[in-house]
């Protein structure tokens, strides 16, 4: 349960979505159209003296302001209730947005084509905070003069941000807008989720150890030895690493044999600083301890893993490679031999966040299968 309870009673999980946009863009109307209760307005009385704090001291001063928050409710099922909050439109209530955005799953930014610029502050806020959002062009009578592409260009929106046209007065239209947002949230969720791993799973599985438990270490080492897969550079695997870079657009890539004690060796590697220049050792070598990087997790889980931003995961943000190499994104697939032992990985990393998609994951799995076949062929076992 995501709620911290002081009672055993099972309360529904609240899902918070925000409805933002400029003053008069239709937030109140939108919330009212979808809410199952009468649209309500909560007032937050605030003063300049108590901005951002739960305190009434100073109420009655000239600086006292009342912020009206529209909100609505939709009961989704017995366990989930959706709460919609209309964010206060005026600039002077910015500080309230932080409280509202805390724990929000996503946002609809309503745009009025007559005043497109009014939604810039909302877009900026959500972009900076990393809150996923969609833009809904509210179709006022006779106001819709622009196509979605023109709106996208005018607002300088990234290609992945959906734009829909809606009628905020219409329950069906507003509900469809929320559905579009939800679909966007599902597709924007970390790729690890797509692979059947939630952040919670990862945290639980690996909570107690810096590196994951590794009961199969000796079996893995035995398989590597039996396959003649030695910790030696192999130009063929270097070529495969180059191929991974081309497919994924990542900065570095490699083939990884993970030894008995989770020590890692890269028979193939590619990317800046991985090649010997004038006989000197390359800046990035072929060996790495087990507590560095994310491949050991792929080996332990025996499943592919994609991390768009390692900083999103408490477990992974503290990894030594984050500071040492500036790593921000990772994708890896396990090398699984015919006997079911996982002997290593193929991997790619980036020094900036990277939005991996399902095609990247599929490509990595395919390359892993190719590498595994080559390992067995070299060992005369294929």
């Amino acid at each position, binding site marked *: 349960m*995501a*709620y*911290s*309870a*002081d*009672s055993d*009673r099972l*309360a*529904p999980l*609240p*899902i*918070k979505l925000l409805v933002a946009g400029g003053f008069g863009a239709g937030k109140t109307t939108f919330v009212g159209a979808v809410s199952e*209760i009468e649209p*309500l*307005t*909560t*007032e*937050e*009385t605030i003063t300049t003296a108590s901005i951002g704090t*739960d*305190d*009434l*001291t100073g*109420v*009655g001063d000239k600086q006292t302001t*009342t912020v009206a*928050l529209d*909100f609505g*409710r*939709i*009961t*989704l*099922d017995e*366990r*989930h209730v*959706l*709460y919609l*909050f209309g964010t206060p439109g005026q600039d002077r209530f910015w500080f309230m947005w932080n*409280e*509202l955005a*805390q*724990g*929000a*799953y996503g946002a609809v930014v309503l745009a009025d084509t007559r005043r497109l610029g009014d939604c810039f502050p909302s877009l900026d806020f959500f972009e900076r905070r990393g809150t996923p959002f969609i833009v809904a062009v509210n179709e006022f009578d006779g106001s819709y003069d622009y196509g979605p592409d023109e709106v996208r260009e005018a607002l300088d929106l990234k290609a992945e941000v959906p734009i829909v046209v809606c009628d905020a007065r219409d329950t*069906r239209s507003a*509900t*469809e807008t*929320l*559905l579009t947002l*939800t*679909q966007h*949230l*599902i597709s*924007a*969720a*970390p790729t690890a*989720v797509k692979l059947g791993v*939630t*952040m*919670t799973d990862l945290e639980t599985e690996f909570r107690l150890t810096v590196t994951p438990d590794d009961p199969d270490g000796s079996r893995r080492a035995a398989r590597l030895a039996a396959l003649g897969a030695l910790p030696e550079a192999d130009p063929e695997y270097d070529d495969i690493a180059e191929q991974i870079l081309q497919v994924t657009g990542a900065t570095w890539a490699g083939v990884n044999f993970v030894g008995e004690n989770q020590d890692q060796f890269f028979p193939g590697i590619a990317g800046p600083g991985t090649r010997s220049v004038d006989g000197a050792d390359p800046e990035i070598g072929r060996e790495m301890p087990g507590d560095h990087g994310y491949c050991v997790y792929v080996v332990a889980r025996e499943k592919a893993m994609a991390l768009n931003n390692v900083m999103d995961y408490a477990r992974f943000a503290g990894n030594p490679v984050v500071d040492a190499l500036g790593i921000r994104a990772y994708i890896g697939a396990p090398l699984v031999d015919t006997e079911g032992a996982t002997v290593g990985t193929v991997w790619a990393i980036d020094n900036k966040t990277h939005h991996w998609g399902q095609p990247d994951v599929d490509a990595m799995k395919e390359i892993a299968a190719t590498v595994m076949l080559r390992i067995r062929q070299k060992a005369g076992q294929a």
Partner: protein
Amino acid sequence: MADAERPLIDEDAGPLVRPYMASGGRTAPTASFDLLTLVWSTGRVGRLAIEPELGEVLLLCREPVSVAEVAAQLRLPAIVVKVLLSDLLELGAVAVLSPDPDVDTTDRSVLEALLDGLQRRL
């Protein structure tokens, strides 16, 4: 000419009854509440045994209800409601459940419940 029956005030004068009158002059809640904190009556304290303002809040809490909703129903600023609720909490009259601020907002099972629930409304 101003209507002699009506006091000569405008918005700059602030509310006629200060919001904190309802909270007995106190200005800060003793417990922490979010707008989405759920509250519900424990049934351990009768509505008539407590002050009317508190009784009104309690009346709205027969089923789990959010702080935002209580505030809207009572037409009181949320901060005032938070003060009243912390009184009720101390009396053992209500139980509360605050949302986890670090909730995983990319949890697929929750997002799918959202998707299903919205689709059913079309």
